[in-house]
């Protein structure tokens, strides 16, 4: 009833090309941003105990994983290149950021977090080179090579972790405007703001890229690479660009994960193949080739188990933590299959359908 676009005439192409052409959508986006930028922090300040838990366990990791999912989605969802190495690219970002901030401690950490993406981007391009000759599932093996090789480097090159006896990244305290944003003294709120700003900014950029020439050429390569060449799109540069942007996003997500979520330290095992699978399952459930889907997927895959655990806890059912975990794993798998059967394009597509229904409600069509 309220969700109608009738009467909203677009008089310019610019208006028609907007990412959110419908007024209600823009209002909702504004409210949403207001909620996450003002509402959530306010809540966290009013109820610090639950608020901090909410920020640290739900919001911060959710945003970071959503960013990683966007990264992988650019490669796999938009360009159609299967990758099982996103975990390692996240690792490259994390280690790059650690090196940078320990070599140049005075530069604001946020800058290094973003710059670390550049390193991950370079490594991504390197491992993307075989995509010239290798297609489809075969390419997945090239990314597995990246995954295992990079993980080996994280353990084996002590220079990467500054020869720490712990063999891990030990996050030093860094401040922004005099406020600690990394390390044990950084409040979840401070870290949340940084993460939110980076994720919001990078999501905006991703949306811009996807809705323009570059996004079209990625999707063209995905949908029909032969025809794409006839449009004058060169396959290798297009694919490498996808690898570059994707790894950049994953790298920044990885750096943020260690610096703004874990905030104190992380061992190389964090960036194992399991991390890659984790992010991959997010984009499958959320929807391949959808930015919104990346957020949905991250929410479902990351937050769902926590909710399940909480429900089990709260209900007081005599189920052991291990059983919950087993059920959770099974449920994740079952959900993946279920969503693929009901809607192969993931939650994002279901969301669109729901919106369509809402638009014509109360009429069936």
């Amino acid at each position, binding site marked *: 009833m309220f969700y109608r676009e009738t009467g909203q005439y677009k008089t*310019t*192409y*610019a208006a028609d*090309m907007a990412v959110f052409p419908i007024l209600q959508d823009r209002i909702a986006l504004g409210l949403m941003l207001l909620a996450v930028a003002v509402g959530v922090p306010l809540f966290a300040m009013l109820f610090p105990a639950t608020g901090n838990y909410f920020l640290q366990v739900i919001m911060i990791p959710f945003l970071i994983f959503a960013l990683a999912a966007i990264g992988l989605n650019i490669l796999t969802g938009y360009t159609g290149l299967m990758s099982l190495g996103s975990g390692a690219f996240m690792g490259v970002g994390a280690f790059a950021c650690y090196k940078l901030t320990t070599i140049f401690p005075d530069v604001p950490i946020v800058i290094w977090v973003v710059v670390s993406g550049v390193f991950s981007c370079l490594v991504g391009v390197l491992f993307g080179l075989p995509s010239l000759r290798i297609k489809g599932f075969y390419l997945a093996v090239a990314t597995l090579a990246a995954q295992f090789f990079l993980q080996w480097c994280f353990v084996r090159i002590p220079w990467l972790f500054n020869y720490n006896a712990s063999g891990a990244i030990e996050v030093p305290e860094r401040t922004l405007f005099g406020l600690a944003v990394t390390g044990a003294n950084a409040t979840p709120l401070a870290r949340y703001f940084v993460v939110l700003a980076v994720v919001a900014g990078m999501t905006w*950029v991703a949306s*811009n*890229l996807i*809705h*323009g*020439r*570059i996004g*079209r*050429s990625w*999707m*063209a390569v*995905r*949908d*029909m690479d*032969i*025809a*794409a*060449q*006839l*449009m*004058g*799109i*060169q396959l290798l540069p297009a694919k490498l*660009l996808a690898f570059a942007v994707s790894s950049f996003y994953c790298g920044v997500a990885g750096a943020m994960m260690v610096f703004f979520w874990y905030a104190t330290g992380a061992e190389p095992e964090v960036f194992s193949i399991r991390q890659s699978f984790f992010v991959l399952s997010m984009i499958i459930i959320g929807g391949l*080739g959808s930015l919104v889907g990346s957020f949905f997927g991250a929410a479902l895959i990351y937050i769902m188990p926590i909710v399940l655990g909480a429900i089990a806890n709260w209900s007081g059912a005599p189920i052991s933590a291990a059983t919950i975990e087993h059920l959770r794993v099974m449920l994740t798998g079952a959900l993946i299959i279920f969503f693929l059967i009901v809607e192969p394009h993931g939650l994002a597509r279901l969301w669109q359908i729901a919106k369509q229904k809402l638009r014509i409600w109360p009429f069936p069509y």
Partner: protein
Amino acid sequence: MTHHRSDDIAPGDILLAVENVSLAFGGVKAITEVSFDIRKGEIRAIIGPNGAGKTSMLNVINGFYNPNEGRITFAGRTRPRMKPYEAASQGIARTFQNVALFKGMSTLDNIMAGRTLKMRRNFFWQALRHGPALDEEIEHRKFCEEIIDFLEIEHIRKTPVGKLPYGLQKRVELGRALAMEPTLLLLDEPMAGMNLEEKEDMSRFVIDVNNHYGTTIALIEHDIGVVMDLSDRIVVLEYGRKIADGTPAEVKSDQKVIDAYLGVAH
């Protein structure tokens, strides 16, 4: 409205020359020593029975296959080997026998994809999608909207092409090729699988394109009637060899062509 890079070639002059081209896959010969030319501004048909090498010929022209022998001169430039995207940047566009649209994208995006080569704003501006990048996007959007109007597909502008009926898909594919503002447009069976009404529409579009944009067209088509009506000149292939070349009237009366089509034993 067109600004071809081959402006120096006057209408009626030779735009594309195929000389002694041969192509083989493994031991199988697809094309054997075929020569013909396409003049600027004409509609040139390539016909022949199934397996005559017509599609292979188009693939050679736009660089998918490199001929084993012979050479191809386009707009005065002879090329030994070429990649499809180079052909695209020289002004050769193409539609496919089995529609090769970007199925996950909308009609508009498909046609906009045809503008890729004309868009110049770099990655940085694209990432911001403001200022020059947005202006450019709008400028090209205008161009594409003209094509959409021209092809009468306004109503499906935002529909993912995978969901469109076949006839419309063919039209979108033509639109995408037109968006490239090609000098030479290759159409591979643009009317295959269409009913009479759709064929008439499509014929009208082909003629309009030729008239309105002055685009040179080479087309493959099985419907002899359509071919005779549309084309200025026809080249006939059989088993990879050229058996006839000339105006519709000449070809129609050629004995070899009649034999080939009626299946007289050789």
